[in-house]
């Protein structure tokens, strides 16, 4: 196996053997390598949870913040320095539960970030409670008679908000998932990649086998620019579609819309402060 510049040697990984996170980590590193992104120009922002530990296991700048709060931090990082590649990565509980409000508003802003969500339909780190995406009747030590709340549908929500890139992948499919992540990383605005991922310890229902049997890939007849069609696909259950559901190539990014970037694209952190303008503004308070 050839060495990947994103590899970190001698690390103690906290994931269970067989966890879907390992394959997502490998896919991500390979995608980054193939896109020739440099570790020092990459920032991975995460929250809390097993998925949120991912950035500790590859070479990158890391902002491992609070549970549910990766998206606001990632949005700001990209805004103050648009030259960075910014990924916000966490699990379903973090992004869709604790961070649900930020998920909605990040989509509305359309920052140029890639949002990778490890969706295993269960809480791993807190030992097996339901997540917002747990399916109906899923039994846990807390949901003792099974989940009865409607599972959160991140794709439908994203498409309803006209997110500029919406995809679903499966951690068990190396090739397809890598291509999706590469496209997401190359996409100009906000890109959601929800990744189905088995939790081998706490989810005995949605296993590798289950995901294999209950998913299929959207084929070339699916028009990714057709929002209504994408929405229809996003509400399919029974067999869940995988692939890129929707792209809106015409949206301006959050950064592009910001007043400091209207006239030029120099990151604000590199812009010089002009004291004479401040003096002018203060003097205007003499007779304003």
């Amino acid at each position, binding site marked *: 196996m050839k060495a990947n510049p994103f590899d970190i040697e001698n690390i103690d990984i906290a994931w269970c053997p067989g966890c879907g996170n390992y394959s997502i980590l490998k896919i991500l590193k390979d995608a980054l390598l193939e896109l020739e992104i440099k570790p020092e120009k990459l920032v991975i922002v995460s929250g809390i949870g097993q998925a949120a530990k991912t950035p500790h296991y590859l070479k990158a700048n890391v902002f491992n913040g609070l549970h549910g709060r990766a998206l606001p931090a990632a949005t700001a990082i990209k805004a103050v320095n648009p030259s960075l590649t910014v990924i916000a990565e966490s699990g379903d509980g973090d992004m869709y539960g604790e961070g649900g409000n930020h998920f909605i508003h990040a989509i509305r802003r359309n920052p140029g970030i890639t949002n990778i969500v490890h969706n295993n339909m269960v809480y791993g780190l807190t030992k097996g409670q339901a997540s917002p995406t747990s399916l109906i009747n899923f039994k846990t030590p807390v949901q003792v008679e099974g989940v009865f709340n409607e599972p959160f549908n991140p794709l439908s929500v994203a498409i309803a908000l006209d997110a500029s890139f919406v995809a679903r992948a499966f951690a068990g499919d190396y090739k397809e998932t890598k291509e999706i992540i590469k496209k997401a990383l190359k996409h100009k605005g906000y890109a959601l990649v929800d990744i189905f991922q088995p939790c081998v310890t706490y989810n005995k229902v949605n296993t590798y086998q289950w995901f294999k049997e209950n998913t299929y890939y959207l084929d070339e007849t699916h028009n990714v620019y057709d929002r209504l069609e994408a929405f229809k696909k996003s509400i399919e259950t029974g067999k869940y579609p995988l692939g890129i559901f929707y792209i809106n190539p015409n949206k301006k990014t959050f950064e592009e819309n910001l007043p400091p970037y209207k006239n030029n694209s120099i990151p604000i952190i590199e812009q010089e402060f002009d004291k004479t303008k401040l003096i002018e503004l203060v003097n205007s*308070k003499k007779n304003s």
Partner: protein
Amino acid sequence: MSDKLFNTPQKDVSIVLCGEAGQGIQTLEFFLTRIFKISGYHVYATKEYMSRIRGGSNSTQIRVSSDYVRAPVRRIDIFIPLNTEALKHLERNITPNTVIIGDKEIIKSEYKIYNLPLTRIAAAIGGRIYENMIAVGVLSKLFKVNLQNVEDYLKNYFAVKGSDVVEKNIRAVEEGYNEADRLFKGAEINIMKNPEVRNHILLNGAEAVALGAIAGGCNFISAYPMSPSTGVLVFLSQHSKTFNIIAEQAEDEISAINMALGAWYAGGRALVSTSGGGFSLMTEGLSLAGMTETPLVIHLAQRPGPATGLPTRTEQADLNLALHAGHGEFPRVILTPSTIEDAFYLTQKAFNLADKFQIPVFVLTDQYLIDSYYNIPELKLNQLDIEKYVVKTGRDYKRYLITESGVSPRGIPGYGEGLVVVDSDEHDENGHITENLELRVKMVEKRLRKMELIEKEALPPEIHGEEDYKHLLVGWGSTYHCIIEALKHLNRRDVALLFFKQVYPIHKSASSYLEKAEKIIFIENNATCQFGMLIQQFTGFKPENQILSYNGLPFTVEDLVEKIERIIGGVNES
């Protein structure tokens, strides 16, 4: 003309305007403060208002003076009520010397009222909207303001709205001018003007905080609108293009603070501006700043709580919140501007401190300071520098390198060959998660060690008065000018004031002032003497004498004089 106000030279005159929300009290305040200032008067304005868009009773006090004037008084010299309710609202402050000017068609009252037929005159000009300008005209005449100056100001101000608007507003002012002549038979108020004041800057607290932020190199603000902190967000948004500031209205305060931390992490200089409830939502983010040693500036504009409290009123009751917010142990600084100038300079300083020590720095203001206006001679911009402490990283960069001072050189992503890893978990020097408990101890000690340096840079308290004082007043934050004016009224050499512009950490000199006093009197706009308790914790001096107010209003000078005399006795022993 029998009124004393018109027959003797005055040093300062208190005007109070009161009406419903939506009647234009704020517009009146805006024009009057500016017109008085360009005429050479020192001017001060403070407002109290209800949390509603229409109805209720809102008032503004404007003091016009021959010298600096910067504190609220109970006294009303000229009262302009815009409805009958206004008289009831401020009944307790009306004295036989109060000159009341109002439209008798609207106001039904037993008080002697100089009848100003605002409704009738405004209708003739073009509608109720001109009532305010008629009042401006009346006061301009009474205060010997040159009519041409007012007209020039209005021409300039309304120019964008077209000549019809300009003409009608000028006519309204002229009508008011003539009405004043008729009502007061040519009598005027004699206050010395000072031409230098025309060149002064007129600011309110919110503008001063925002300008201070700009001077501190702020290039990012994320906030959720909340009274009384919103003015700062508004000001920075309006100037975002000129100063390359990203101003984002976040979906909630949790997002706001996490955005600000992201911005600092990536090399920005970010501010959050909020008030009590909003800040409560930010406390987990504050703790993240503590753990990741990410700089942060928090403008916390206090209003009375708990919970929603009195949304548009003032209080100093969130000191304990700022002091104790956030789980875990980490250093912080709390600056408490006492004046409009301080609001500017301390906010500027907050950015440098935050960056230097990689800590959260609070600028703790309140509604009173934020919404008050007065003229200040200048802001010394040339002496201010934006101090930046970001380093270029090398290949082996360690974000949390353990150093003697506790401060690790702070890199940012993309600047240098190194990787910048920050983590809300306990971490190793590289920033990666650790559960190595020996390392944990080292990291805790590293973070807290910074406090030694921070304490060395703490602002010392200011002492006002003679050195051989017996009674020592102690205050902090926005009560400053009110206490100073009360001191002047007391005119006693045995009373001094010890004033704190930084309440945490407390400068070590505090004890030496306290131990000299026979009686220490804490003056705070809260119910539990929060700063007194903090002083006790730091110095051992118990806050035995307390002057506290928590009715949602700032102290007035008269309030303080009475309450201080009650504690120290009314006799002037000097």
